[in-house]
């Protein structure tokens, strides 16, 4: 039975049918009918952010920590354009979002009306797909299709632009169609012949490595479980991209740590020295590969990815497998077991001995001495004092992000929210709000730099209004630390505009918003201060004043291969050649 209703009511009805419980948004003229409907119901909670970019990042945090799509509702024109950074961020990191934007009425489109923007035109390159709905009778079907597209195959953000007259007009509501009835059906099962070939390669490999990425997380908790089973059963070491942290537990015995530009020594040298590289749901990003022609030069390469365009995009693959990580790993384990659970144990023992030698370098070692807090020490203490708790960590972008990835241990998927592909400063704070909304009783910490954090600091209002006890752990070096580091290594120590004068007093700032502020600048007080933050039942800004000139190591300089990594200050002289200098 179909029911007649207004487009605005249809939006709320379709969201309910899709199981949406939270919408992050900001009202405006072109979405008022939808807001009116939201007012008249209690099933869907609306979180009022303070800026539309915050709404999208909050929805990303929600999506990453739950595995469900995040939903955003914003108005036309500036509402939509403010959402663009978040959409691009979600596209780069494959985060499922459904963004609803208001639009001027259909008869005014193209007339440069007030708050009009070509939203579908602007967001076409930064969404997985988008729609402008011009007839109310297409609206509910389009919303259902949008959820299907956002969550199928490689997930991503989608946008539906809804003109105001379409929201007012009435039409018949179309319920959610049955699964499998649509044209868009990405392939999830991998090619069995190729999986068989990869199993053969695993059986004989002398120096294999699993290189895992965000695709394992996106495939669901089952995929992480299968990855753990595969690693344990075969004895293959595991490294991960920034996006994939938590898929394999940091306490697992096969764990090498993160790889890439600021990855661990043992992880990068294992990648460089391996003879079989198994990429599971990662995409050979340039932060990972460094110089392409010297990347993992002696290995055969397998690549499991749900997106056919990821395969052979950057690195030529010997075992390409298009499919969902969970499905492929399940088949792979089945085949491996059926063939007698073989592995080259003798060679693997030698390989692990070599890896242990690299591990002995202890590339993350640092010394906390003197009266100033080292940023690594701050994160290490945060790790020690929160270990064992089911905590969710968000980050902004920069040095603190890399230190968080290096010094925090992740035991489970969906506990780590960070902007990987786009590198969006200002991501972490609103993301932490989205995570806390999804997990009201969990410990949610945003590890931040003061510069990134200030980019979306207006969301303090949101955190306080909804009593979200998010912990903002700000490593304050009064610098744009990563920019400063590159200027030191690359631009003759000319620190062009990479420091901030007149930073706010973060304690007073917290108090101005009605939250708690804590300041700490003495290593001796650090543990107590962190505990005070953790024990406070409400949002906290923690202003941790740290060493201002600390650099983030290890580091693979731009344009260099993995085995040319820098381990500390002594190795930085002329580390980056002129070719590397043009890279970012």
């Amino acid at each position: 039975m179909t029911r007649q209703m207004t487009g605005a009511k249809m939006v709320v009805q379709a969201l309910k049918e899709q199981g949406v419980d939270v919408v992050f948004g900001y009202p405006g003229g072109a979405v008022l009918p939808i807001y009116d409907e939201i007012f008249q119901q209690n099933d869907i909670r609306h979180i009022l952010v303070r800026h539309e970019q915050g709404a999208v990042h909050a929805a990303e945090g929600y999506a990453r920590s739950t595995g469900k799509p995040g939903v955003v509702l914003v108005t036309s024109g500036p509402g939509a354009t403010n959402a663009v950074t978040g959409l691009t961020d979600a596209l780069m990191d494959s985060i499922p979002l459904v963004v609803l934007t208001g639009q001027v009425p259909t008869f005014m489109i193209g007339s440069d009306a007030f708050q009009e923007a070509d939203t579908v035109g602007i967001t076409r390159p930064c969404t997985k797909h988008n729609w402008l709905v011009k007839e109310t009778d297409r609206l509910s079907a389009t919303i259902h299709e949008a959820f299907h597209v956002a969550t199928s195959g490689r997930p991503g953000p989608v946008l539906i632009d809804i003109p105001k007259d379409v929201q007012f007009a009435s039409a018949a509501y179309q319920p959610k169609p049955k699964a499998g009835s649509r044209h868009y059906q990405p392939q999830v099962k991998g090619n069995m012949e190729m999986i068989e070939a990869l199993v053969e390669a695993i059986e004989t490999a002398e120096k294999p490595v699993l290189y895992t990425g965000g695709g394992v997380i996106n495939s669901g908790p089952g995929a992480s479980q299968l990855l753990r089973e595969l690693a344990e059963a075969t004895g293959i070491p595991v490294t991960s991209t920034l996006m994939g942290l938590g898929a394999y537990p940091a306490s697992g015995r096969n764990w090498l740590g993160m790889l890439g530009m600021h990855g661990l020594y043992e992880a990068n040298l294992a990648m460089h020295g391996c003879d079989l590289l198994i990429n599971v749901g990662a995409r050979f990003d340039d932060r990972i590969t460094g110089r392409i022609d010297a990347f993992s030069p002696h290995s055969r390469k397998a690549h499991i990815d749900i997106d056919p365009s990821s395969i052979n995009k950057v690195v030529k693959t010997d075992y390409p497998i298009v499919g969902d990580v969970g499905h492929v790993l399940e088949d792979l384990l089945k085949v491996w077991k059926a063939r007698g659970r073989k592995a080259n144990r003798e060679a693997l023992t030698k390989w692990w001995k070599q890896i242990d030698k690299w591990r002995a370098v202890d590339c993350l070692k640092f010394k906390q001495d003197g009266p100033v807090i080292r940023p690594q020490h701050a994160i290490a203490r945060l790790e020690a004092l929160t270990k064992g708790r089911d905590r969710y960590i968000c980050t902004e972008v920069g040095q603190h992000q890399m230190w968080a990835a290096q010094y925090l241990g992740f035991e489970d998927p969906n506990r780590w929210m960070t902007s990987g592909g786009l590198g969006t400063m200002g991501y972490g704070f609103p993301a932490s709000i989205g995570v806390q909304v999804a997990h009201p009783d969990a410990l949610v910490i945003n590890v931040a730099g003061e510069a990134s954090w200030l980019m979306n600091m207006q969301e303090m209002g949101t955190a306080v209004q909804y009593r979200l006890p998010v912990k903002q752990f700000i490593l304050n070096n009064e610098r744009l630390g990563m920019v400063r580091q590159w200027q030191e290594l690359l631009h003759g120590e000319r620190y062009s505009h990479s420091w901030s004068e007149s930073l706010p007093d973060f304690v007073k700032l917290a108090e101005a918003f009605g939250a708690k502020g804590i300041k700490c600048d003495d290593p001796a007080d650090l543990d107590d201060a962190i505990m005070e933050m953790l024990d406070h039942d409400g949002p906290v800004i923690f202003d941790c004043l740290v060493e201002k000139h600390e650099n983030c190591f290890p580091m693979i300089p731009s344009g260099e291969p993995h085995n040319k990594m820098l381990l500390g200050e002594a190795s930085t002289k002329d580390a980056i050649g002129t070719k590397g200098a043009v890279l970012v």
Partner: protein
Amino acid sequence: MSALKIKKGSSKHSAYNLRPQFSDVQETHTLAVLVENEPGVLARVIGLFSGRGYNIDSLTVAEVDHQGHLSRITIVTTGTPQVIEQIKAQLGRIVPVHDVHDLTVEGRSVERELALLKVAGLGDKRVEALRLADIFRAQVVDSTLESFVFQLTGTPDKIDAFADLMRPLGLIEIARTGVAALARGT
């Protein structure tokens, strides 16, 4: 779909077909892309090419199945084998794209383009233009005492050759449709 005589697509499996090494030889390929005829679909395809820095040598588009809401886009593009594979994979993941065919590698195909050429001249030049048009089997579709409009169908090479011959004979304007292509056989 079967009414369009298109074999099941290569788009989803294109990654398996990549040649052994990344070569830097430039190749020209003709791609047939079957898309949902919805607003903005052409912009998505063109935006993909400009956004990722691929070349478009020629592009034609028209609805081919009104009931099924399907349009066919024929794109001639140039790139290394790796880039061509990327283009196909990237096209394949656009949501309203149903199928991507590389007519250059999927067996033999016919390619045709239509051109209209306006040639103005008097005396011997006018006679010569008409004589060459006859050789090329171009039709006169408009004529004044000082000019002809020729209609010519053929491969892009043939149209290039005819245009080159017409240039000294008074070619003043040319309009070309771009390539339409179909696989040969069934």
